């Protein structure tokens, strides 16, 4: 056989019938897998250190349950779905509205976190170096918040691009991936919320 072989296409299998999963979807899925692993470690550490602080302030003294922020963040998972659907049906106007709503809800969440931290630091004198509670609280909530920030940045980018009239077709996939990521960030918040504000108190 000639050294320079090439494989013959077999008659019963043509390239056009060959379907493999979308690489973007695969990529995002596994990105989320690895992020999950990262959060798991911080959550586990939080759980391990509950009640191990040698000095105050303790969670039950200073933590308020962030109901409003939670509602905002969770409902933003809904608005982003509406936005996606709108884009699917090529209703650009509605897309923009829902998209903007998602972004605003995310920003409200971040603002609440900012206010909460400010209060903790200046009023309750809890910093990352005060005790184990401070250490684990700021790092876990901060890690989550940093993911919200990244999400918000990308939401903004898409918004800007859309407002400047970018072709919809190229947007669709991006919007889909971003919405997966956003759902993930929301799901993580459910865990963080449970661990920090319910179990941890």
């Amino acid at each position, binding site marked *: 056989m000639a*050294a320079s*072989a090439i494989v013959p296409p*077999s008659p019963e299998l043509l390239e056009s019938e060959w379907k493999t999963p979308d690489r973007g979807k695969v990529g995002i899925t*596994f990105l989320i897998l690895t992020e999950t692993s990262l959060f*798991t*470690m911080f959550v586990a550490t939080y759980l391990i250190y509950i009640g191990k602080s040698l000095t105050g302030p303790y969670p039950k003294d200073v933590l308020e349950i962030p109901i409003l922020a939670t509602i905002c963040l969770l409902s933003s998972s809904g608005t982003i779905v509406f936005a996606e659907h709108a884009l699917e049906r090529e209703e650009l106007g509605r897309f923009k509205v829902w998209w903007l709503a998602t972004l605003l809800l995310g920003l409200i969440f971040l603002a609440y976190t900012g206010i909460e931290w400010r209060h903790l630091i200046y009023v309750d004198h809890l910093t990352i*170096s005060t005790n184990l509670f401070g250490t684990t609280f700021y790092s876990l909530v901060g890690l989550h918040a940093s993911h919200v920030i990244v999400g918000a940045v990308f939401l903004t980018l898409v918004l800007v691009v859309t407002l400047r009239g970018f072709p919809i077709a190229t947007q669709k996939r991006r919007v889909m991936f971003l919405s997966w990521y956003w759902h993930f960030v929301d799901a993580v918040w459910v865990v963080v919320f449970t661990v920090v504000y319910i179990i941890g108190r």
Partner: protein
Amino acid sequence: MASIDYPLERPEAAPREFSFSESLYKWVATVDHKRLGLMYMVSALVFLVIAGIMASVMRLQLAVPNNHLVGPATFNRLFTMHGTTMVFLVGMPIVAGMANYLVPLMIGARDMAFPRLNAFGFWIFLFGGVLLYYSYLGGSGLSGAGSAPDVGWFAYAPLTEKAFSHGASTDFWALGVLVSGFGSIASAINVIATCVSLRCPGMTLARMPVFVWVMLVDAWLVLVVLPPLSAAQIMLLLDRFLGAHFFDTQFGGSAVLWQHMFWIFGHPEVYILIFPAFGTLSEVIPIFARKPIFGRPAMVGAVVAIGFISLGVWAHHMFAIGMTSWSNTFFAAASMLVGVPTGIKIFNWTATMYGGKIRFAVSMMFCCGFLLQFLVAGLTGIMLAIAPFDWQLHDSYFVVAHFHFTLIGGLVFGVFAGIYYWFPKVTGKMLSETLGKWHFWLFCIGFNLTFIPLHFAGMLGMPRRIYTYAAGRGWESWNTIATIGVFFQIAGIACFAWNVIQSVRSGKAAGDDPWDAWTLEWATTSPPPEYNFEKLPVVRSSRPLWDLKHPQDPDWKYD
């Protein structure tokens, strides 16, 4: 079978000389998976030599008792940098490099799924490596005295806390490894997406070469276990820079938490490192024994099983921390269970050779070396897994001997087998078999001479990570022999380096398929063109080129 003969058209690459700056630009700006793969491999080999030289200095220091060649501070930096470099800057880029170069070729794809992410991964990896080595200058400012990290490659807390590790050297360790880890994650996502999405028509998962399967599981492992290390390093950096108390025992923090997080990463990591060698053997042995891999499904299943079981054995590195007898037993049991799928692999490789016509090309010699040495390594691993025995062996030179048997006798031998096998594909030139045999024998003898004696030093109570020892404790002769072995290893690697240089300059032309092989990478030119395949291949079995070469008895008949 209606075999259509496709004449291969090859647009001859324009015979144009590139100027130095042009070709430099081509390399730096490339997103081609083959160039990136090569860059990974070359950096790995460069780091191998650097870390190997460090190891040689350590061995010289330990050759005789009460030696004062290097002081304690220098020695501690040497083994820290040696271990860290070998694991993160040699082992990991080998994983990424081999996957990058070979996976697309083997599954008949034109590139990786995300070429630019791929380039990003390489450069961020290299940046992490440079950052780590910058610690020699920046660890305590440019004051002259170098200050690389000296906390050991697993950097146990609280030794790494600010209170016990002043200066910035530990920060460089955490940051450098963290950053290079992002590169590994990028490359792992890429490998998975490539394997899942870019297979050529007909390349079902069941037909994917075992090598590709191994790299797929490897990438999955990277994604699952690298974040725990990153998390631990982020926490350490928070401790060091912001005064957090994750590992601060004075504030109620736990010293054991670091160990858990590190080894949740660390144990699967050793499988991440050995997998490229497993993959290589699964490709090389069939070709040189002239038989298909024995029990393909079992081989793939074993890798998947290792991938899962290895997630649950981490605390066998922590038998001495005073765990409950239940935990000790559980982790001992899980560790020994890993031996079962690993055994399946060894048996199936042997069965592949059984009944074949084995051709002992250098590549195959390295495979045989692997089989015997990895067997020893695995069995000493089983001894370590027996918790009560490990209470004696833990942190002794027996462990050092065990893991060098896995990492050199296994990983490095496997990688050399791979290099001798795929070098013709990558460069279009053959490596010299004569020099290769010198390389094999010198390295094999040297390696065994170095690391067999260290088992005995360990059983005589020699702890690891000691910069010197007193005479009369029964360790001298073992250590002297071990050091002599290193000279053979250096000679072996020098042969290899010479061989590569010679062959690139004036090696025999390889042709496209010098080994008469069966997987898709041999269906294109050597070296492959930028787009890999003129026309995307279509396959009907796991050995497409076998089908082509044996139209009267193709593999797909048995699928």
